[in-house]
């Protein structure tokens, strides 16, 4: 059984089919990239997978459970327990430090644990920035805090919507490298991106167009690394 399966999923706004009968499977441990032009329905797909929004039609099976029919309350629980979200605009709480931002996810999940939160920051290489506020961090560092926050509760799947959209190349590489590490550790990743370089490093790429899947490609020589750089 796939970890995630979309069956004939549509999202309809008025008479606009933002998603039009999408069928998609994501296996456990897979690293999937979603590409497509602006307005093609990438974010809409993410919202539906991420239990932030409900599909108008079709089934969304996460772990074999159809989340398309769940109540708002149950969706919140699913987000909390199974999903790690990363956004283009980071969305850190500005008056909390890096480590507190990570702890916030723990707080709403169960109990905040500063030690564990520090370990998560260490994994993204930000242990020394733990007490800094978002405004004192660079964009790349902020996004790494977001990665730490997304993985703190051991989600089944990490969803990233344009995670590198606001980053320069160097920071983009750092974030991609983090994804590679997470992938190696067995985390399931779905990454929406405009950037072919970020898409190329995934195992598989799905391209959306007008709310439909236009085509799919498998990365034959998958390494998880951006080609033109060498990280040690």
């Amino acid at each position, binding site marked *: 059984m796939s970890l995630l399966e979309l069956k004939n999923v549509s999202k309809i706004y008025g008479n606009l089919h933002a998603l039009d009968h999408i069928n998609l499977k994501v296996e456990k441990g897979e690293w999937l990239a979603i590409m497509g032009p602006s307005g093609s329905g990438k974010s809409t797909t993410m919202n539906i997978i991420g239990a932030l929004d409900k599909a108008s039609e079709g089934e969304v099976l996460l772990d074999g459970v159809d989340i398309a029919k769940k109540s708002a309350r149950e969706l*919140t629980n699913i987000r*909390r327990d199974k999903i790690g979200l990363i*956004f283009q605009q980071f969305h850190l709480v500005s*008056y909390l430090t890096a480590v507190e931002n990570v702890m916030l996810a723990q707080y709403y*999940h169960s109990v905040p644990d500063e030690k564990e939160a520090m370990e998560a920051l260490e994994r993204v290489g930000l242990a020394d920035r733990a007490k800094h506020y978002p405004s004192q961090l660079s964009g790349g560092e902020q996004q790494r805090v977001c990665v730490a*926050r997304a993985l703190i509760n051991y989600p089944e799947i990490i969803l990233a919507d344009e995670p590198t959209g606001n980053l320069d190349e160097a920071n983009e590489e750092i974030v991609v490298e983090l994804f590679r590490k997470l992938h190696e550790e067995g985390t399931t990743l779905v990454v929406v991106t405009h950037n072919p370089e970020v898409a190329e490093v995934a195992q598989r790429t799905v391209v959306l167009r007008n709310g439909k899947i236009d085509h799919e490609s498998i990365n034959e020589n998958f390494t998880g690394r951006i080609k033109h750089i060498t990280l040690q």
Partner: protein
Amino acid sequence: MFIRMIAKAFIRQWKKMTMIAFTIALGASLATAMLSVMMDVEDKVNQELKAYGANITVVPKEASVVNELYDVGEENVSGSYLSEDELGKIKTIFWAFNIVDYTPFLNVEAKLNDGSPVTVSGTWFNHHMKLPTGEELDAGIASLRSWWEIKDGNWIDEQGKDKKDVAMIGRALAEEEGIGVGDKIRLAGNRNSKQLTVAGIYDAGGEEDDQIFVTLDTAQALGGLEGKVDSIEVSALTTPDNDLARKAAKDPGSLSVAQYETWYCTAYVSSICYQIEEVITDSVASPVRQVADSEGQILEKMKLLMILITFLAMIGAALGISNLVTASVMERSQEIGLMKAIGAHNPAITGLVITEILCTALIGGLIGFFAGQGFAQVIGHTVFGSAISMRPMVIPLVAVLVTVVTLIGCIPAVRMLLNLRPTEVLHGR
């Protein structure tokens, strides 16, 4: 974590929070001031009105009929009297506690040394009584004639060593007759004559300036009217009249049992009168109309005004708070959307926001409460010329008002917060 978040959110939003606290402080101070004044004002006004003297007079039944028919004023033409023995009973009625002071009067005609006629009023000055209940108290005219100015000498001290053979003389009479303090005067009454020492000269600013006031015993001896009094003046704290009181005043018999009970057990001037009539044989007790009526009206109007001010202050505060809190939530919509996205349930976020605002309200409310106390004193001094005493009841009342108003003020923000969908704020469209 919760506390840490609240504390940090506070510091971050201190400007807005200060504004909210200020708004609440403003509302709370007004509410505190108005409630304090309102609760204290009833007694204040009563004290104020007590300065105008008695609000109930008691006369014999026949005298009351004659008075009504012929309006003869002071003179006792009916020849009927009340009994001095029963005076103590006034302090045993249901509303005895509300009887602030009272004194009997007995007016007799007498002649001075030079033969000029004068009205001599016998009364109590600081009369000491042992009540049937075992209580002891002093009663007398002093508090019922608080506007008298003692020009010379002193009030008569019934308990002092000068004992009974003393008199107080009105300013006009004293000037006319050339009498001063310490002088001896001889009064010839219908039955007896007496030599009295002048203890004081008063200025009453009215017809009493032509009279002589003596102890009740002296007047009784002069007129040969031992044990008798003409009238009693009573100063009582009363509740303003309402429809029930007016209906009862016309005829207590027209009330249902329950109404009667309510009326009897409320300190309406009519029920106090009724209770006095119950203990003083063949008496008619009636409110001194003008004062008793205007008293109730002024009080009711003032209370209404204060309730209105409090109400408006609270509405104003609620509107102010709702604007500020909504603005604050709007400003934080991304943060709130994020919290929802990472698994915060609505109650958790609502709780966070409301706790923040309630903490702010607590601070604002405390500041407002103390400011309001000061405010109440200012009102007390400018309007009533006395301090307003703090009623403990004001604290819970203001606390409840502030809480309710704050919560009402939070409603629009909370609704917005509940309807906020993370997808709408997180993708930065």
